[in-house]
């Protein structure tokens, strides 16, 4: 079944897909370590947020962060994004009229929003351990900064990866995604990285 990206359903599908794949278990048998994916807001994200389904998926991801941890957004560029969208850290996201907000975003000048929310990102934390994806969750600002690897890039590039239009190694080699962490360890585990991204891009995405 196709799911919306980004969304909680997509994260759940990823979790199921990885943990049910025998080949992944084998090639990642020695892998120990987590990733923090920093998905930077860009014009394509704002364009996609004009689609109520995508916007709902994004808001539900934010809503998956418990209120006390959502406090960490305060004073960050990510709070700037919420404010630019007419929301706040304290907004009860389940009460937001998604259709109306999507319409409002379509009427906004993307340059103004991006300027107000310069550097804003959606951070996803993925914790891998010996062939298993133990956890996939949305991270609040400042959380999991000590992850073994940090993968940073614009929303449009992550979308290419998720939709299988480009593979992670090519995107990192080209510099479109920046990878920070123990590269020696990464070099020993290229097969695991390749298999994971293959599984991720095999999830059908609802357009």
């Amino acid at each position, binding site marked *: 079944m196709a799911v919306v990206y980004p969304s909680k359903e997509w994260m759940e599908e990823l979790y199921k897909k990885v943990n049910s794949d025998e080949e992944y278990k084998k090639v990642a048998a020695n892998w120990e370590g987590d990733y923090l994916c920093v998905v930077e807001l860009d014009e394509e994200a704002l364009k996609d947020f004009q689609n109520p389904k995508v916007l709902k998926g994004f808001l539900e991801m934010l809503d998956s962060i418990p209120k006390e941890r959502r406090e960490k957004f305060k004073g960050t560029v990510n709070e700037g994004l919420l404010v630019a969208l007419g929301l706040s850290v304290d907004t009860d996201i389940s009460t937001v009229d998604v259709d109306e907000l999507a319409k409002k975003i379509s009427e906004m000048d993307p340059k103004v929003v991006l300027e107000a929310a310069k550097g804003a990102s959606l951070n996803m934390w993925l914790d891998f351990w010996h062939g298993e994806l133990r956890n996939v969750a949305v991270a609040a600002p400042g959380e999991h900064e000590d992850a073994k690897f940090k993968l940073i890039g614009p929303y449009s590039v992550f979308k290419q990866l998720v939709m299988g239009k480009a593979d992670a190694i*090519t995107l*990192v*080699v080209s510099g479109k995604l920046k990878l920070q962490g123990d*590269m020696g360890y990464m070099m020993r585990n290229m*097969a695991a990285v390749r298999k994971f991204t293959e599984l991720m891009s095999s999830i059908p995405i609802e357009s």
Partner: protein
Amino acid sequence: MLRGIPFDSPLYEVDEDRGIEYRNCDAITGFFTIKNDISDLLPEGLKPYSEPAQGGIWISHYSFSTVGEYHEYITVIQVEDEQGGMGYYIPYIYVTNDSALAAGRELAGAPKKLATIDLIKENDVVMGYLERPTGKRLVTFVMKPNTRAAGDMIDFVLPKPTYLYSVRHLPPIKGKGGVTQLVKWYAEIDFHVDPNGEKVIFNGPGTVTYDSPSAIDPVHKVEIENLLTAIYFQFDMKLGFVDILREY
């Protein structure tokens, strides 16, 4: 100077301090996971760096070097030595000039053979191939260098220096004078930098095929499972020697 034979007119002369120097070269390299067990190709003292093992193919043209102009084909296996160093073991290597062949074999133990090798640019594709003898196509590597490789990852695939390992072997005569040594050497690759300050490295889709396997030149024994990255680059280079790691 390190000199080969004949003593009065050596086939190669290498300045030990400067190594073998190369200018204005270009190459394509494919880095891949290896499908099969390659432990029987590795000498004692080296083990695969990863599980599954990873390797690469390099096809280059050196427009100038201190051992002459030539083309080269290399198969490598990414390995770890007993000191924990990462590098590449060379099970198969081919060149197109006798000076490079002699220097590589005698100084480093690189198991070089003469073959027909070319690196061609046609339409939007760069193609490298290895034939031995001419017409018997062992390997074809095509790639389309369509994206600038601006990331740091290449520095980990081809670090400076990139360590290489080979087994220098001189068979004994009547049990005397034989030598079998694990030699660690290096390639110091200086990628060309364009006027914008960017390294001239491009990646893109690629395919490596073992067109026609040969028992005489079994390069196909390093089976390719997944091509992880393919790059085209322009560079200068220096080859030098690190140490003899082991006497067998």
